[in-house]
Every structure is written in structure tokens, then in C-alpha cells.
């Protein structure tokens, strides 16, 4: 029989020094004595975040937070709370001068499921102060590597940790480093790919804005491991604050001799500069990025076995990958590889956007379900609407429907569902989102961003877009869905780079999971989500309308008429289907069909 209640006792160093272990023993014997051992499970936990108030006991599922416990409190606490179900107010965490306690941060669903490794300093340090980074174990990993590890040992540690590229493809980082280290050509280079361009993605920007030194330290450790002497942060110019903070971080690191000649007196020479990208989406692709740094037009090339910069070996990793490196060195490969799933270790940073209550930046252990991310951490869908799909992987990814919400997030599982991990953008869509329109939006994006080198991508995306435009306008024809599928597969097979190969994904995955929506558009000239303007009409329900005149006052076309306190009517000839009346009406009287 499962336990009804969990008693989580914090056993961090701080709480133990305050007597947490005595409390735990007292709790165990008292619970046994009261015959509650089958109902209450005692769980020792790690630092709760409030440990200055230790020893701390959190009772779940209620989330009640007891603090500064003493062994003599325990019999009363067990009797009152666990036996009689009456939480003991005087032992609860109460801020000074307050009647009712405010919740503990880690009991709030948004923070509860998160675990910060890449974002370990977010919101805690001043990103413009290298000293504050150092105070939180900053540059200790670099010092450790330089003082006590060989290149091989560093690479082995990264390989053993199971760290995979966080830019999306998930290539094992250690293996990438090893191949560059063995390349006899010099000089070698380190690049941080911060050319984040997916709509709705802001992980890389946030990491750099919050903690630029974690990225620089990771890159410097990488430089030592592969024997590199120069590095670039390829950072798009649309991120002015990130550029500014990274620039300052580089200058501070140089001043301290953490970049430049003879780093920490170890003999390692390595320096980094920012390369500002002009904002072309294709530059995030490895060969284009390299071309851009070399001063050429950023068109992808046939991928050589190993990408080079000026004909020399280069390690290109994403911002989040680099930010993970110092933590792995400090805490060990074993620690890191215990987090996550069989094939995907550690955590992943996601940016939650779209129809979601808690839009923001989250870092979660790999293997967490999409349901937890969307409904627990994300707080569900606004206005009580139904969840329809989540889009991962940006314009290269796909849609994941409600039926797959229990999917465990890792590289392989997302791939299997027809989407991809991607860099971590997660766009949540509610029941009023049209999947055909969303597919159209992403294809319009890639069509715009296609560099134009391959016909399949340049013309193929255009052909897809034309068909999707027609379907959304109600001009779809029988056979359009099959044509989209055929075209999509051809584009995937015939394009040179990742942008082209993956651009059909939003179309193919939306057909795979939402074929009925395509058919409704084509056969019935109907948009089931009520989103495609050409296929919907707005009308007023005469039973619900109270004649409040709000809709008429707000209509920019003056298409709504009616006297006060009488039913209003929409003139279909004037209506432009902007939906303002729908938002304005407080009585749900505007109907979309």
C-alpha cells in the first residue's frame, strides 16, 4: 500500500549541523509508536533552499513547511499533524510580522520540478561581476583542470558524463573534442554557437545574460582539452544585452588573466572574441557559421567529416553545452551521469512560450514528461482552455499532440515522436490554434530564411508554402495532403544542410498527428480551431447577448449594430474577422463558426 503522506526531512550539511538527524530519528520512532508507519514515509532530501531555518521538514502533498524543529516538538507534531490532521501553526515557517506564511519557493510547481546546472547562477549573481561568479565556485573547474588533469583526463570526464550537444543534434561532446584533439593541424579553435534563431527560443540568450562566465570557463576548459589557442562566441546582434554582458565578461576575464597568455600561470594561452552574427537563421548551421566567421557568404557546404575553420580543427558547441562543462568538472562525470535517462544525461534548458500560464525559462532533468513541463511547471493553458500540442525543435522540429504528453523528454523519444530536441524552444498551443496555420507559419519562416543554395530547399519551401496558403484560404484540393507529404520527403532527401532537411518536419508531423484538420480545411472548407480567417464567420448568439454595446464600441470596422440592451448583429460584409468582439464580449455571446 502506498504511503499517504511524505515527510521530507532536509539532510543537507547545514540542517545536519542543526540536528536534522536527531529529528529524523525522533520522527521515525514517534511515527512507529503511533502506528503510522504504513501511512507516513520519511524521506531524507537535499538542501531545501531555506536551510538557515533548519532543521526543516516539509510534509507532502500538502506542502506544509516546518522549520527550526527541536526533538521535543516531535511528539506533539506527530500527534497533531499526522494523527489528527491539524498542521501545527507555531512550527510553520512564518516570516517576521506576518500572520500567514508565504509559500516556500520549492513547493511552487514552477520551481519544484526544476534542477539548475547550466543555469546554476541564474538570478543569484550580478552577471557583470566576475568576482560574484568566482564566489560561486567560478573558475574552480578551470583551476582544477589546469593543475591536476591531463587533456585525456578532461576529455574522458566529459565523455563519461554522457554530455551531448545541447544545440539540438545531440552529438556526444567528449567524442567531438577527442577527434579535434587528435587532428595534427594547428592552431585549433573553440567556438560557442550562440546564433539562436528559432521562433520562441531564448535559452542561449538567457544563459549569457545571466552567467556569461560559465560559458567562458567551459570554453577555456575545452581549449585546454583540445589544445586550442583561439575562440569565438558567435552571438547574434539581435541580442544587445547578451553581447554587452559577454563583452564585459571577456574583458574581466582578460584582466584576471583567465583569458590571454599563461592562464592561471599554467602556460595555457587562449583568448576569445565575440563574432557578431547579422541574424541569418542559416548561420546557426555549423558550416555556414564557419563560413560567416571566415568572411564568406554563409551558405552551407557539404559536411566534411570534421568541420574546419580556416582549414584548421575547430570545436563548435552550443552555449548550454559550454555552460555545463565547469559543473561536470567540479562535481564529476558520475554525478552528472546519474541525472537523466539511459541515453540522455543531465538536464535540458527549455524556453516555455505560447499558450502557457508560466511563460519562462526552465531547466529540468532529462526524462521528465512533457505533461510535467506543460501542466505542472508551465502551469497549464490560460483561460482554462484545452491543450492541443506542443512544438519542440523550432522550424526543424514538429508538433507533439496531447496523446503523447506522457513522453519522456530525451533525444531519442522526441525523435521517435516525429519531432526533435532541438535547442530547447517549446511552444505550447491551445485548442484554438490551427495546426495547418502553424505549419504554414513555420514554412513561411524557413522559406524566408533559406539561403537559396539548394533548389529543393529554396523552391521546395516555396511550393509547400503555396499549398498551405491555399488550404488556409479554403482553396485546398483533393490530393494536397499527399502532395505535401511527397514534396516534404523530397526536400528532406535532396537538401544539403540541416535547415533544408528538417524544414518539412512541421508539415509532416502536423499531417501525421492532425490529418483530420487538413481534411476539414480541404473537404469541408472549415477550420476546426476557428483560426483561419477565410474559413470562419463571427456571429452573435441572441440568447446570450445582453446588449451591453461593448462589441459595437470596440469593432474597428463599425460592423456591429444594435441598440443598448438589445441583441446586436454583425454585418458580414463589413466584418474583417479580427476577433476583437470575441475578446471584448463578457458574456461569451460571440460565436465563431
Amino acid at each position, binding site marked *: 500500500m502506498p504511503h499517504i503522506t511524505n515527510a521530507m526531512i532536509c539532510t543537507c550539511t547545514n540542517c545536519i549541523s542543526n540536528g536534522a538527524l536527531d529529528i529524523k530519528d525522533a520522527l521515525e520512532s514517534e511515527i512507529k509508536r503511533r502506528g503510522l508507519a504504513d501511512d507516513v514515509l520519511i524521506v531524507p532530501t*537535499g538542501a531545501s*533552499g*531555506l536551510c*538557515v*531555518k533548519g532543521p526543516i521538514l516539509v510534509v507532502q502533498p500538502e506542502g506544509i513547511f516546518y522549520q527550526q524543529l527541536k526533538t521535543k516538538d516531535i511528539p506533539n507534531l506527530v500527534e497533531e499533524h499526522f494523527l489528527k490532521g491539524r498542521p501545527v501553526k507555531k512550527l510553520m*515557517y512564518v*516570516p*517576521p*510580522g*506576518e500572520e*500567514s506564511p*508565504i*509559500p*516556500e*519557493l*520549492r*513547493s*511552487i510547481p*514552477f*520551481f519544484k520540478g*526544476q*534542477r*539548475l*546546472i547550466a*543555469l*546554476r547562477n*541564474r*538570478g*543569484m549573481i*550580478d*552577471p*557583470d561581476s566576475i*568576482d*560574484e561568479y*568566482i*564566489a560561486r*565556485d567560478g573558475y*574552480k573547474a578551470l*583551476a582544477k583542470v*589546469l593543475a591536476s588533469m591531463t587533456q585525456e583526463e578532461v576529455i574522458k570526464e566529459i565523455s563519461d558524463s554522457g554530455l551531448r550537444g545541447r544545440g539540438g543534434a545531440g552529438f556526444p561532446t567528449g567524442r567531438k573534442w577527442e577527434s579535434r584533439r587528435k587532428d595534427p593541424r594547428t592552431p585549433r579553435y573553440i567556438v560557442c554557437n550562440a546564433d539562436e534563431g528559432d521562433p520562441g527560443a*531564448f535559452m542561449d*540568450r*538567457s544563459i549569457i*545574460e*545571466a*552567467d556569461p562566465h560559465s560559458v567562458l570557463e567551459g570554453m577555456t576548459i575545452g581549449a585546454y582539452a583540445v589544445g586550442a589557442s583561439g575562440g569565438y562566441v558567435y552571438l547574434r546582434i539581435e*541580442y544587445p*544585452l*547578451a553581447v554587452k554582458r559577454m563583452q564585459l565578461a571577456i574583458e574581466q576575464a582578460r*584582466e*584576471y*588573466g583567465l583569458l590571454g597568455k*599563461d592562464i*592561471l*600561470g599554467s602556460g595555457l594561452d587562449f583568448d576569445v572574441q565575440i563574432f557578431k552574427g547579422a541574424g541569418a537563421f542559416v548561420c546557426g548551421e555549423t558550416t555556414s557559421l564557419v563560413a560567416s566567421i571566415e568572411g564568406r557568404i554563409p551558405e552551407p557546404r557539404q559536411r566534411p567529416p570534421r568541420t574546419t575553420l580556416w582549414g584548421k580543427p575547430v570545436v563548435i558547441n552550443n552555449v548550454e553545452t559550454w555552460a555545463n562543462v565547469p559543473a561536470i568538472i567540479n562535481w564529476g562525470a558520475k554525478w552528472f551521469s546519474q541525472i537523466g535517462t539511459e541515453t540522455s544525461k543531465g538536464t535540458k534548458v527549455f524556453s516555455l512560450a505560447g499558450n502557457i*500560464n*508560466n*511563460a*519562462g*525559462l526552465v531547466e529540468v532533468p532529462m526524462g521528465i514528461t512533457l505533461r510535467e513541463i506543460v501542466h505542472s511547471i508551465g502551469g497549464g493553458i490560460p483561460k482554462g482552455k484545452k491543450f492541443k500540442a506542443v512544438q519542440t525543435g523550432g522550424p526543424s522540429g514538429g508538433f507533439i499532440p496531447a496523446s503523447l504528453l506522457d513522453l519522456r523528454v530525451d533525444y531519442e523519444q522526441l525523435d521517435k515522436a516525429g519531432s526533435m530536441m532541438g535547442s530547447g524552444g517549446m511552444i505550447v498551443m491551445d485548442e484554438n490554434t490551427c495546426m495547418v496555420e502553424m505549419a504554414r507559419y513555420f514554412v513561411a519562416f524557413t522559406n524566408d530564411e533559406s539561403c537559396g543554395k539548394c533548389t529543393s530547399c529554396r523552391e521546395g519551401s516555396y511550393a509547400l508554402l503555396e499549398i498551405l496558403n491555399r488550404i488556409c484560404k479554403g482553396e485546398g484540393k483533393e490530393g494536397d495532403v499527399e502532395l505535401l507529404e511527397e514534396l516534404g520527403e523530397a526536400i528532406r532527401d535532396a537538401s544539403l544542410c540541416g535547415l533544408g532537411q528538417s524544414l518539412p518536419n512541421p508539415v509532416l508531423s502536423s499531417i501525421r498527428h492532425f490529418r483530420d484538420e487538413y481534411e476539414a480545411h480541404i473537404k469541408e472548407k472549415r477550420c476546426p480551431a476557428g483560426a483561419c480567417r477565410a474559413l470562419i464567420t463571427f456571429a452573435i448568439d441572441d440568447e446570450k447577448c445582453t446588449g451591453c454595446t461593448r462589441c459595437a464600441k470596440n469593432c474597428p470596422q463599425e460592423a456591429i449594430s444594435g441598440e443598448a440592451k438589445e441583441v446586436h448583429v454583425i454585418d458580414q460584409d463589413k466584418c474583417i474577422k479580427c476577433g476583437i468582439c470575441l475578446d471584448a464580449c463578457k458574456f461569451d455571446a460571440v460565436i465563431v463558426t
Partner: protein
Amino acid sequence: MPKIRPEDLDRIGEKIKRTMLLREGACRVKIIVHMGTCGIAAGARDVMKALTQEMEKADVKDVLLTISSCAGLCSREPMVTIEVKDQPAVKYVDLNAEKAGKIFSDHVLGGRIVSEYALAAGSERTL
């Protein structure tokens, strides 16, 4: 600034811990305004300005006003974290200049948490 040696890292860390982490030293309260792009877009500069003015007006010597980046919950920005010595940090959400002023007078100066603007107390799970 001279170039540092590995042993200097601990020295710098200790120095910062003394001033910023409120263990010892002159500081009693630390105010962190979360100034990532999301915070700034939502109005963190107004909050910062209001707090700077309050600091000048109150002429306090034991309060440190500093910045940090996005606290994760972008949809509730502008956010401020208040750390009072020996107490868990309190995170405030959905702020503006006026609310920031009240937090300054009630929590920073008066020691009373403004619970209607507070989200929660404590810190996140790291590592």
C-alpha cells in the same frame, strides 16, 4: 588588476561572500533587481530607478542594491529578490515603481514581508 593565481580564487570568493552574502560585514539587506531582457522589457528599469531613489531618500548604509538576470519566470517580471540577513530570500513578482517603493519601506526598512506581492521564499535547486 594583476593577473590572478589559482589560490587567489578562494580569496576573491571569500571577499565577496563577506560583502554580498550577508554572513558578516556591514550589509543587512541585499536587494536584487532581475534585469534580463524579459525583466527590462516588462519595466525593471522603472523598478530599479524607484529603488535607487528610495535608497537615497532613506540614506541607509546597510542595504545593498544590485542586479541579476532572469529568474526564470519571465511572465511575472519585473521581479525583485530581497535577502535579509539570516532569513530565506523572498521573491516578489509583477512589480512596478509603486510596489517597489512599498516593498522598500515595509520589507527592507521595516522587516515585514509584503505578502500580497510576494511569490515565495527560498531558493531554487541547483546542481
